[in-house]
């Protein structure tokens, strides 16, 4: 028998605390696989943020630092500037990156920090029990938008990939999804590309991954995937927003 698929050594054996069907687990796996496949697990320092993924430091099989809420890109900057030859990535939710941490994200991007940001957009705050995120969709009900997000009250969702792509320091930015296998395969390619970008020293790379939160969306895991497809993908178009590799080819 040939092994078609087995658990990556990029992850530890610790079982995750994520809710059943939460796609954080899929994204973890992909990152772990990329680190394993590129052979850089030993040369990587990951930065866990505050959110459901805070304990990701127990799951990724590499050195990990836990950062204050929103500050992962600053922490990553501190690490990378001291150790420019290591791979440094952050793993951040949308509350972490797009709300409290948008300044650190914008500036790491603008400085062209040679780091990789895995940005998990699940349109909600998972960890704290389902509050509105900057990425919450119009009409979406959350603990802090109980009547549905209302554009005139709470404004419109921030499309982070689009926004950061306007910054000259960014090298690779792609938005992908986890709602089915073909998209997951694409997502992994994007993550690989992002780490390759870092390897080549091109600067700031980010993969925005649309992810589910069955618990706080109040849907079962499979419905959640449909919700991503039907509601999030239209609001957050998938695709490559910045590609230094393309530009380099020119």
């Amino acid at each position, binding site marked *: 028998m040939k092994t078609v698929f087995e658990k990556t050594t990029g992850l530890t054996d610790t079982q995750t605390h994520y809710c*059943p069907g939460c796609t954080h687990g899929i994204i973890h796996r992909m990152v772990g696989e990329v680190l394993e496949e590129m052979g850089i697990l030993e040369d990587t320092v990951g930065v866990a943020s505050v959110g459901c993924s805070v304990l990701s430091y127990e799951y990724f099989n590499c050195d990990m630092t836990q950062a204050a809420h929103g500050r992962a890109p600053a922490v990553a900057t501190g690490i990378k500037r001291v150790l420019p030859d290591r791979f440094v990535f952050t793993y951040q939710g949308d509350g972490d990156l797009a709300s409290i941490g948008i300044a650190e994200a914008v500036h790491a991007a603008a400085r062209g920090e040679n780091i990789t940001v895995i940005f998990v957009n699940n349109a909600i705050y998972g960890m704290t029990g389902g509050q509105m995120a900057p990425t919450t969709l119009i009409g979406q009900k959350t603990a802090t938008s109980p009547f549905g997000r209302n554009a005139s009250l709470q404004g419109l969702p921030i499309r982070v990939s689009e926004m950061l792509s306007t910054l000259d320091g960014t090298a690779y930015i792609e938005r992908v999804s986890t709602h089915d296998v073909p998209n997951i395969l694409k997502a992994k390619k994007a993550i690989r590309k992002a780490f390759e970008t870092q390897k080549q020293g091109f600067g700031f790379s980010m993969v925005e991954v649309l992810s589910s939160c069955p618990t706080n969306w109040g849907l079962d895991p499979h419905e959640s995937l449909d919700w991503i497809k039907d509601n999030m993908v239209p609001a957050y178009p998938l695709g490559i927003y910045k590609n230094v590799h393309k530009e380099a080819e020119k």
Partner: protein
Amino acid sequence: MEQRVVFNEETCKSCQLCVKACPTNVIYLADYLNEKGYRPAVVTDQESCISCGKCAQMCPDSVITVYRPEKIRKTV
């Protein structure tokens, strides 16, 4: 017949994403609970598994290992 798809049952959370992802519908939830209190996903009809790996791609908890039978070349 050898196992084509193996579940680390103790780590399964019953999310059924594998169940929905499987093109041949061979995965189902067992009628017992694992230590964590979840009904683990299982496959009994191993022959029907086509080793496509989709369940494993979809599983958030890296529960699944997938094998493909070697092509057996017989030289007559």
